[in-house]
């Protein structure tokens, strides 16, 4: 299904939930994903745990370690997705969020073929920026799995920060190509984007933030200038108030650490906490 099924998540504003596969066990993950679907989550990102997740804050780092400790492998995640599609008849789009090395080790063609076969729609790889997309773009496309592009505040900040920080930045060495990066880069990324665009809300790693200060509207406007691919905002979003603000500026919000934290606290018994929390977040869309 791939990119086509993802569209269905964005018919209205989408709430996208992340949970780490195998935290604390794969059976719990299966139950939690079914719960999230019942609550009206538009798309679920399943974290395929990696030993060294450099884009993650402490909450998801710890979840990755728990999942690896419980023996979660790439194959086990594929089996989980297969079960969700076949036995549980789950129809919402599903994405894998992971790092490039586990895919490289599995073999790109084999990985994407299997992903498509079990019913995965997209993959998000934080350590595979746009310039390196050629690594997997063709094979992902061949197997109809959307390769999600990420855009960050720094994608368009390159030219702005000297003034915003009031810092002297001698620029005589910048070539004209580098000087024009900011909005051009966003547009280049947006033009090739598939499924949805993952807009990173703020600097830093994943986690729970009290405040988001990035001018999201300006970045969304740059993206809108070249594509109607939906834009979902993630990193740091944890409260209904943030959802209310962000969902006005974008097509969806992505929440990870706040949900993973409930699982860290509740283990295999986090169902009521997840239900209450996710309802409050979806209501704020």
């Amino acid at each position, binding site marked *: 299904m791939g990119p086509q099924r993802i569209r269905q998540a964005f018919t209205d504003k989408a709430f996208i939930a992340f949970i780490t596969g195998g935290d604390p066990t794969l059976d719990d993950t299966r139950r939690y994903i079914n719960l999230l679907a019942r609550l009206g989550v538009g798309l679920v990102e399943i974290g395929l745990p990696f030993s*060294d997740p450099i884009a993650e804050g*402490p909450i998801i780092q710890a979840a990755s370690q728990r999942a690896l400790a419980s023996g979660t492998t790439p194959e086990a995640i594929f089996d989980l997705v297969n079960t969700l599609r076949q036995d549980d008849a789950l129809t919402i789009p599903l994405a894998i969020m992971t790092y490039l090395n586990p895919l490289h080790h599995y073999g790109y063609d084999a990985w994407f073929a299997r992903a498509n076969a079990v019913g995965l729609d997209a993959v998000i790889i934080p350590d595979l920026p746009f310039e390196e997309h050629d690594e997997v773009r063709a094979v992902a496309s061949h197997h109809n799995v959307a390769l999600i592009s990420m855009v960050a505040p*720094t994608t368009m900040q*390159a030219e702005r920060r000297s003034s915003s*920080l009031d*810092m002297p930045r001698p620029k005589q060495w910048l070539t004209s190509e580098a000087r024009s990066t900011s909005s051009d880069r966003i547009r280049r990324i947006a033009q090739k984007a598939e499924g949805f665009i993952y807009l990173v809300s703020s*600097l*830093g790693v994943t986690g729970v933030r009290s405040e988001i200060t990035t001018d999201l509207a300006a970045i969304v406007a740059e993206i809108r200038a070249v594509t109607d691919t939906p834009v979902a905002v993630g990193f740091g979003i944890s409260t209904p108030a943030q959802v209310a603000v962000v969902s006005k500026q974008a097509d969806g919000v992505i929440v990870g650490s706040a949900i993973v934290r409930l699982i860290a606290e509740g283990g295999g018994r986090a169902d009521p906490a997840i239900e209450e929390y996710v309802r409050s977040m979806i209501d704020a869309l």
Partner: protein
Amino acid sequence: MRGRFGVHGGQYVPETLMSELGQLAEAYEHYRGDPGFTTELDSLLAEYAGRPSRLWFAANLTADLGGAKVYLKREDLNHTGSHKINNVLGQCLLAKRLGKTRVIAETGAGQHGVATATAAALLGLECEIFMGLEDTERQALNVYRMELLGATVHPVTSGTQTLKDAVNETMREWTRRVADTHYVLGSVMGPHPFPTMVRDFQSVIGREARAQILEAEGELPAAVLACVGGGSNAIGIFHPFLADEGVALIGCEAAGRGIDTYETAATIATGSLGVFHGMKSYFCQDDHGQIAPVYSISAGLDYPGIGPEHAYLHDTGRATYVPVTDAEAVDAFEYLARTEGVIAAIESAHAIAHARKLVPTLDAADSVIICLSGRGDKDVAAIARYRGHTVKED
């Protein structure tokens, strides 16, 4: 393709860092050819770091091993006691040109952290160092040394609490605060432009050594040896010899308790192709592509990967990589101290250990150069512990 060594290298980092890396690459390309920059760097290397470092003819070693003439490239005599100062002076000067006011760095044994803290103190930059908790305990004196130099040291408690995790945490910190901060990466690893930039800053070792051996011997050496973790001292001494096809280039990896055990850090011997820490290269990893916990007595070589240019030199066969165990390295550490009166870093002792096997097989007319990447004061307590002695430092 930019920043590639064969299939290796690249820029596998979060989008948040891509603009910064692009600007860093542009700036480096500009300043490497800027006379104002290179003159200032050369002057600091000479007057502050004490370059050129000596190429010492080790007569006792040569007589004892009974083969080729042995020369030691004395990077241990640099200010701060290792080759790391060459790179940090270059990067910190560049950081200043970029308008940065703060530098961050990872460190394993502490040598790169001490060097970075030193350059930051000299050049008036704020400095924060990330060091695995286990390493802060193994190298407690170096932690205090960095603090004396005005740096803040953050013990890293994630993962295996060693060099790999220190790199993870420094990268995370860079994504948090990138506008005023430069990441002084300590080896020829990570995303482009670091492997190229760090190589260029370290190549002063090989340029000097090549001229010095030609002066002393009138001909090129049969072999050049260096220890390899990420591989910055090795690439630094290898690079100016790359075109000299008759010169064997030999990198000595940390085999820990042996390459047939899991307690090893020998990446070429036991690793496979992968993508990690911003680069495609060889990594120690498990059956599912998880990065493997590695082990070496040497905190500076205790790293699960190797720089992408080394991976390429291995692929092409231009350089050879050999594993050296803890036991061999400790023996060599003691041997060099007794024979030549030089206490080398345990990292460098890995290269000495392989030289003990190689040199006797060579002709007396030949010469070899061993890069003595650092001094061993920091390792004395650990070697004593390894031998079952108790040394009280306080």
